[in-house]
């Protein structure tokens, strides 16, 4: 993945692909994943799948996204209510920081 042109749209596409891979079940392959999709309510991701997602995010974005540290800063209700869009915005922030640094 290049370090340039990380728009919310391109990051959403990348994150959605990673999420589908992590779920790894047929139903997820055609699932529409938008900024408003909830990890818990809509995708029903398990906590151990969040670990795999964190690992995939690190690899996909060259270690510039600390998903574990970011989630650890939230309380449980925030984690449960987490939307794909909130993660996408966080990833975009991480990437813009590390390209301008």
């Amino acid at each position, binding site marked *: 993945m290049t370090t340039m042109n990380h728009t919310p749209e391109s990051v959403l596409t990348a994150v959605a692909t990673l999420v589908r891979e992590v779920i790894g079940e047929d139903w997820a392959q055609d699932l529409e994943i938008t900024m408003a999709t909830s990890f818990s309510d809509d995708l*029903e*991701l398990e906590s*151990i799948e969040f*670990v795999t997602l964190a690992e995939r995010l690190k690899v996909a974005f060259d270690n510039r996204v600390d998903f*574990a540290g970011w989630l650890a800063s939230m309380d449980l209700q925030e984690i449960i209510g987490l939307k794909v869009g909130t993660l996408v915005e966080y990833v975009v922030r991480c990437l813009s920081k590390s390209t301008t640094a």
Partner: protein
Amino acid sequence: MSFEVHNGLKFHVQELGAGPPVLMLHGLLVGSMASWYFTAAPAVAKAHRVRLYDLRGHGRSERATTGYDVPTMGSDLASIANAFSPEPFALVGHSYGASTALHYALKNPGRVSKLVLVDAPLPASRLEELEAFLGRTPEAMAESLPGALQDALARKGRQATRFVEGLRFLATETSLFADLRRADDIPDEVLATLKCPVLCVYGTQSSCRPVGERLARVVPNARLVLLEGGHFLPVEAPVALGDCITEFLDG
């Protein structure tokens, strides 16, 4: 690289951060490395290289049907620790993961630089609540868990189905409960041989609290910290627990 073979089983392993080595073990049944990964581990990983793994039969590690006794889990730990660090390392465990860590530290003096025991039962099998828990169906077990987990279960969706399936596997297809019931106590004179600094962190409302008080009394270099909460401190008090652990490791 997230899978390694130890004792003939495939273990799911992850590492966070850089610095002196710290190995963290989660608790049985409802735990996985996620119990640490999204709670206290990131705080510890700010200044340490943290290794987490899913215990046998848990999370993404291989679904072993036997070997849930403390000595076998201790030998899983020994193999994983050897792959992790040739140098002495800090060891952190929650619940049965802490019982396993304690067993390993006693058997391998010199390997563990510091030991953190979070709500370790001793022995696991004599706790009345655990006995009651073990007698339940997987569905009823799920009902006795912390609120947030119950909310997910109440929806009876994919999370709930997979969670209950994990419990059902451990409860009905493995030797886990029989292994737990056989767990021995560790005599005070053996506990007294532990040389490394030991931090015991227990929940004020936990039924394991007397074990923490006993450890602090008989282990020469141990101290007890009580945090507001019950048995599931990594989830109930993640920030306070992370602070406690990092302060102890860096002190």
